[in-house]
């Protein structure tokens, strides 16, 4: 595995991780994200519905916490976890924890990992000295890349930790990818990219789905003027409404709704026959309306989760695509401003 950078602009890295996969011929774009899975499957989605989504990342994230108890089965299966979960062609990254429901520390496995690249984890809490020590020492080891751990928390905590993050990435070799865990919100993603992070987990769209919401934030930093006006009018309304931050209790995701999304359970969507996001190319927006999603949520139908997950993943992967495009065209500042305006 090797990271080759095309461009570095104000600390933001654009490039490709090469020589991935069993035959070493796969690549992955950075900045990028990993497909979030639960127990080896995208949440709510079968390969068929996953395949409906455009620009699905080349690499999926598995969580050891969901698969560790099945290691005997996997050992007997002999053909690898990729084939077992029905993703034989996918690149796989295995994290210790599930970012949505992290387990307490203490997971240890001694199983040998053949033909896998080891990622070194940078720890150190909020102590600069420890962070630097962790970075320097880990950088000396023959790891394929680095995981920046412990930067998660509420948006305010991240602010203070961003400073630490810059110092940490400064100590790391340029030609190895830097992954950060537990940071997935669009605004936070951009902050981290500016401080030398390459890869992210995509659990944020899953959390949005679980609270019955759909991502609607714009990442179109060069829209045509008429579209902007239309979008702005829509966004203004939504920002105003969401100003009272709502705590929506859902299974395992007791998170607040953000201003990047709309809540389809709200009565105002009952008769709204627009797609979730006008112009979105996802299966849900191409085939269904807000009114239909509202109905599915109100009646507790399983299809709500399926359709919302399809939209939210597509929207999120589209966001990452726009980050790469913006970097390529030296427009990241515009994109950052656009996202900043939409953050609550």
């Amino acid at each position: 595995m090797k990271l080759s950078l095309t461009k570095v602009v104000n600390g933001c890295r654009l490039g490709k991780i090469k020589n991935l996969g069993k035959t070493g011929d796969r690549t992955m774009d950075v900045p990028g994200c990993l497909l979030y899975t639960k127990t080896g499957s995208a949440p709510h989605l079968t390969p068929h519905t996953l395949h409906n989504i455009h620009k699905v990342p080349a690499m999926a994230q598995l969580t050891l916490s969901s698969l560790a108890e099945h290691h005997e089965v996997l050992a007997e299966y002999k053909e690898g976890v990729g084939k077992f979960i029905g993703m034989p062609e996918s690149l796989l990254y295995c994290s210790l924890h599930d970012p949505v429901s992290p387990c307490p520390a203490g997971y240890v496995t001694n199983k040998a990992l053949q033909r896998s690249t080891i990622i070194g984890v940078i720890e150190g809490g909020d102590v600069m000295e420890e962070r630097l020590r962790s970075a320097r020492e880990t950088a000396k080891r023959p790891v394929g890349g680095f995981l920046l751990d412990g930067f998660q928390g509420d948006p305010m905590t991240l602010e203070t930790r961003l400073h630490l993050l810059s110092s940490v990435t400064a100590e790391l070799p340029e030609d190895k990818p830097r992954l950060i865990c537990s940071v997935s919100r669009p605004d936070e993603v951009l902050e981290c990219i500016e401080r030398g992070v390459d890869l992210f987990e995509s659990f944020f769209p899953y959390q949005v789905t679980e609270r019955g919401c759909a991502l609607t934030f714009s990442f179109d930093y060069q829209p045509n003027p008429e579209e902007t006006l239309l979008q702005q009018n829509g966004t203004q309304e939504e920002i105003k409404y969401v100003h009272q931050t709502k705590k929506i209790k859902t299974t395992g995701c007791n998170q607040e709704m953000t201003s990047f999304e709309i809540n389809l359970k709200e009565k105002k969507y009952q008769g709204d026959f627009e797609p979730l996001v006008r112009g979105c190319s996802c299966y849900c927006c191409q085939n269904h309306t807000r009114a239909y999603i509202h109905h599915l949520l109100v009646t507790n139908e399983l299809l709500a989760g399926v359709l919302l997950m399809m939209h939210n993943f597509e929207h999120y992967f589209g966001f990452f695509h726009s980050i790469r495009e913006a970097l390529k065209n030296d427009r990241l500042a515009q994109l950052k401003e656009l996202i900043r305006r939409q953050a609550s």
Partner: protein
Amino acid sequence: MAAAASPSSMESAPRIMRLVAECSRSRARAGELRLPHGPVATPVFMPVGTQATMKGITAEQLDALGCRICLGNTYHLGLRPGPELIQKAHGLHGFMNWPHNLLTDSGGFQMVSLVSLSEVTEEGVRFRSPYDGEETLLSPERSVEIQNALGSDIIMQLDDVVSSTVTGPRVEEAMFRSIRWLDRCIAAHRRPDQQNLFAIIQGGLDAHLRATCLEEMTKRDVPGFAIGGLSGGESKNQFWRMVALSTARLPRDKPRYLMGVGYATDLVVCVALGCDMFDCVFPTRTARFGSALVPTGNLQLKKKQYEKDFRPIDPECACPTCQTHSRAFLHVLLHSDNTAALHHLTVHNIAYQLQLMSAVRASIVEKRFPDFVRHFMGTMYGDPTLCPTWATEALASVGITLA
């Protein structure tokens, strides 16, 4: 044994069914329904998508499985989201974006399933909503009005439904009332050119009442007939006799829809008895409990015995689940909180039902239906002679012997 002679229908009734083949022994038929949203091969199993959704699977997935007709429910959709909204969405087809056919039940069955929340009078059924306590009256006119707004290709009359375990004068009352309600539905139907109104034969488990109902209802000018009031708690022995009685007296050239069936064995037997259309929540519901349907019965995939079973659910099955996943993986996924597990099984179980019907149809067309039945029973029960007694008797009554 030749198929029992059936009465000819009224000249003016629309013929939506074309018979393609008939079994020379039993009453089994293969045909094609010509419906506004396309042709449907029969015998057909119709999956149930009660609230404008086939549970966790998308319209595209359902289409890819070969489904060309599925069910919606008037009672549920009438409450949420309501007929006005659905009409604004260009009907139920537009609302759920389903390009093929839809059949809506009238809400009659809810009289049984929600019996504690309902009260039946000559006027209609008064329901108390479980959501807000509000009372609604579902009359024949109101049911047809809602179904006209939904725009389904086949609509069902509102019938007075009693549980098949009920005996006494209530059964007779319900049967005669169903005839009167049929006439009211016919009168109220605003879109006979776009929507096919089916009658529903009632009469419980009483042969005499059934016969009376059949005689009266077949005088009415409807495109198709359903056999209702069965598939409840009655014994299979009584069940098949009522089905056979009904098919003997229903017109040959109109579709026979047996409501609420069901299990694979029941489907095969009732095709032999002359039924063309079926619906049941069983395959999709049992999927959500982790049960996968197979030619030998079912696999309870949550059980430990599947932990290291790396075979697909059914190696002969062409569905996406069986093409990609093993029982072992599904076992793991079913024990997680990822709903994808349920969707995998829903896809498979619908595929199982549709593939079964396809196989049945092919055997009728190729004039080998009795052999198909014997092979089916052999696979399901280990030996044709181990087939349940009621099924053996039902098949024997139409000339198919299993031994």
